[in-house]
């Protein structure tokens, strides 16, 4: 037993045991992690979804609670990307990661041969290991099955078939890991797997340079880490932190082999695949003829260079229209609810500053943002369906020809798609790419993708131009929304093309992609994803957006007694004295509204808005929109809540319960012209599509790029782009005679 092996008795264990959960991307690892720990991390049916290490608590019947570490998905344990580097360090227990007491390897049964490559690499590290096979039901539906006993005998480790949605194998897995912790059983597979003699000698020689702290006296482990070094040594990016003598030894053998006309990479990788190829037919039984043909037939259509692309665009339009039609009744209910609460609270509280604060500031401001919860839930239902069925991988395939043209990495499409949800996780997901240049290029354009925070703004503007059910042509709203999404993709690709040829020059990045078979989506998994996203949205509405809304309310309300343009008290007195009773009421109401508007204009925010008005006037925005824009630079949704506060303060109290989208569409300026014309709304949407209005995105970019330079550049170029594009839209539409 090695010195750090877990002691037998639970009471003697100094800290909780650590179990590493490792596997290829897309193996279903995160689903297993969620099932075992009860955590709800995001699960998706395309590679590269887990980028940061997550840990969860897993309670075993005998060993008690242990820490389950969700290791980033990786195709191999040789580091080609930042993510794979983390994977090997976490599984091998290299600094800074503690050594795992056992490893659970997750492998996709439908792609067993390729996933076994990873399994063998884990076994070489000589830790107590168990193999969990996922997608077993998918495999069975294609008329195949896995001989678990043969696989277990050959590998020398326990093998469990797991179907998380049906709870199949979970109990068995728990019991086996519990047993592994107590008995410290090691894999019994022969090491090295069919390695040629010359290669074996080279590996042994390099193994002598592996630091003691890494192999802890285990020669098998030392050889495994030697192979890792040999497969990494010629990449300066990947070898950072490896001991220099180890790299030197690995390079010496690499060059010696090259001089003999041998290829060490192919020999090391080939030895593992030779082991797999010799046995795979014993592991996978074919019970019926291959039924994968229907996936192929569907793919013939969906991957067709023209039809497939047209179907993708059509599908997206339907999805976005459904976003409006499907969410509309729920939005109405939430609007009514917010209006009801505002009236109720407004009735309870005595008239004054505090009532204005609670009703106009808190309830209406946050309520205006919460209204978009149904659309966000639906958005994630659709994204979840696309991911879970495997269609996302096809979209990556379709998009590659475009991505390649602008110099983006093939995998950049995954972060860009997550950018539809939120730029922050999308920026983290750029870690799946090997090279810094690819990561930076993707990071710089991801915030241009239409994130869910833009949805409330678009929703508000589109509803202002085309209220649902106003007898317009069908699909208008959906088409407009789809156009905004398409616009964001086009601009992001264009920006990547320009940046990739100027600031971030680089060679054409390669693409190797896996195409999973279509799967039936798992309702539970999608549901959990929706609930999680909704939770984040509501939490943000209750914290960040609430704080910003309150700040904007304060700026809009103070100073309380500003220097007004006219003396309203005198005007009122004058009206009371001169006008007959029937005209008086109307005149007084008009004076009230004018005074409110005047106060707003003289408030701190009003002054700010009017200061920037010259800069935004050519875009078609008045100072009130300017106030919203200032608030939106912290977070985009604040625009909506700020507009709610602006229009709430501007109007009579009895109009409070009117929802914001109605107020916006009916709002007129002093001359009686509509303020939110289609021209202004489009200009505003374009501005929101392009401007970098998100502090969290800038923070994430700072963290991932390791400095202030890139986020500052991101902010500058996006904001400049937004101004220019909005200017072009507003002035261009003016030239064509739009009001």
């Amino acid at each position, binding site marked *: 037993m090695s010195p750090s092996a877990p002691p037998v008795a639970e009471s003697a264990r100094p800290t909780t045991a650590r179990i590493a959960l490792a596997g290829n991307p897309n193996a279903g690892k995160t689903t297993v992690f969620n099932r075992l720990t009860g955590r709800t991390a995001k699960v998706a049916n395309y590679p590269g979804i887990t980028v940061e290490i997550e840990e969860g608590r897993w309670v075993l019947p005998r060993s008690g609670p242990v820490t389950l570490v969700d290791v980033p998905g990786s195709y191999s344990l040789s580091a080609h990307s930042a993510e794979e580097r983390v994977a090997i360090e976490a599984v091998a227990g290299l600094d800074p990661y503690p050594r795992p007491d056992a490893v659970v390897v997750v492998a996709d049964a439908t792609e067993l*041969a390729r996933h076994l490559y990873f399994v063998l690499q884990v076994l070489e590290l000589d830790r107590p290991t168990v193999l969990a096979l996922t997608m077993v039901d998918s495999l069975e539906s294609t008329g195949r099955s896995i001989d678990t006993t043969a696989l277990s005998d050959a590998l020398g480790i326990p093998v469990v078939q797991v179907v998380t949605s049906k709870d199949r194998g979970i109990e068995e897995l728990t019991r086996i890991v519990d047993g592994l912790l107590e008995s410290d059983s090691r894999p019994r597979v022969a090491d090295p797997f069919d390695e040629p003699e010359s290669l074996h000698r080279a590996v042994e020689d390099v193994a002598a340079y592996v630091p003691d702290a890494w192999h802890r006296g285990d020669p098998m482990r030392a050889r495994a880490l030697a192979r890792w070094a040999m497969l990494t040594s010629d990449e300066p990016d990947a070898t950072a932190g490896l001991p220099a003598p180890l790299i030197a030894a690995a390079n010496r053998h690499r060059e010696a082999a090259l001089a003999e006309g041998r290829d060490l990479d192919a020999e090391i990788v080939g030895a593992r695949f030779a082991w797999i190829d010799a046995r795979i037919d014993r592991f996978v039984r074919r019970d019926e003829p291959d039924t994968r043909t229907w996936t192929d037939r569907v793919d013939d259509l969906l991957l067709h260079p023209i039809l497939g692309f047209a179907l993708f665009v059509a599908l997206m339009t339907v999805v976005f229209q459904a976003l409006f039609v499907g969410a509309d009744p729920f939005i109405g209910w939430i609007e009514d609810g917010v209006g009801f609460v505002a009236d109720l609270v407004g009735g309870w509280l005595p008239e004054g500053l505090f009532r204005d604060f609670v009703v106009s500031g808190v309830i209406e401001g946050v309520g205006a943002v919460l209204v978009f919860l149904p659309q966000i839930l639906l958005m994630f239902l659709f994204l979840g369906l696309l991911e879970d069925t495997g269609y996302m991988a096809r979209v990556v*395939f379709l998009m590659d020809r475009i991505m390649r043209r602008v110099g983006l990495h093939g995998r950049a499409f995954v972060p860009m798609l997550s950018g539809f949800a939120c730029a922050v996780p999308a920026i983290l997901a750029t870690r799946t790419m090997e090279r810094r240049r690819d990561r930076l290029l993707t990071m710089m354009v991801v915030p241009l993708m239409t994130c869910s925070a833009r949805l409330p703004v678009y929703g508000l503007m589109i509803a202002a131009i085309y209220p649902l059910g106003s007898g317009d042509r069908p699909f208008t709203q959906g088409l407009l929304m789809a156009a905004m999404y398409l616009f964001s993709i086009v601009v992001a690709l264009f920006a990547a093309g320009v940046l990739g040829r100027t600031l971030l020059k680089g060679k054409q990045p*390669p693409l*190797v992609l896996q195409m999973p078979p279509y799967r039936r989506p798992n309702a539970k998994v999608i549901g959990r994803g929706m609930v999680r996203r909704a939770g984040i949205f509501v939490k943000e509405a209750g914290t960040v957006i609430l704080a910003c809304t309150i700040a904007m309310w304060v700026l809009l309300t103070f100073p309380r007694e500003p220097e007004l343009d006219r003396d309203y008290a005198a005007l009122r007195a004058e009206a009371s004295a001169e006008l007959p009773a029937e005209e008086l009421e109307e005149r007084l109401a008009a004076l009230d509204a004018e005074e409110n508007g005047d106060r707003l204009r003289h408030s701190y925010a009003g002054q700010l808005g009017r200061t920037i008005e010259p800069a935004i006037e050519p875009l078609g925005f008045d100072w009130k929109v300017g106030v919203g824009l200032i608030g939106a630079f912290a977070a985009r949704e604040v625009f909506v809540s700020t507009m709610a506060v602006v229009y709430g303060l501007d109007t009579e109290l009895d109009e409070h319960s009117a929802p914001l989208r109605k107020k916006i569409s009916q709002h007129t300026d002093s001359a009686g012209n509509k303020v939110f014309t289609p021209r202004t709304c489009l200009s505003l949407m374009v501005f929101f599509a392009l401007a970098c209005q998100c502090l969290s995105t800038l923070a994430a970019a700072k963290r991932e790029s390791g400095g202030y330079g890139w986020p500052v550049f991101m902010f500058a170029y996006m904001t400049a782009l937004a101004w220019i594009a909005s200017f072009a839209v507003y002035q261009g539409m003016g030239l064509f005679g739009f009001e």
Partner: protein
Amino acid sequence: MQCLSDLGAACCGRLAKLGGAGGHRRRLLEMGFVPGTRFRVVRRVDIGGVLELELRGCRVTLRTTEARDILVEDVFE
């Protein structure tokens, strides 16, 4: 020997030699593109230039530009 990029759909054969260098070449190896491996071309999309292959019962797609670095032998349809 032929170039993998020259093959059409439904061609079968064996991988012979891998060109290219460094991390990308190693990535191909680790995805199963080891010399000697049998394969089948499942799909070839010329607009866009993508090949879908089946190796050891797994599906992998790569661009035809990258397939130019891969030499194959024993090709039949």
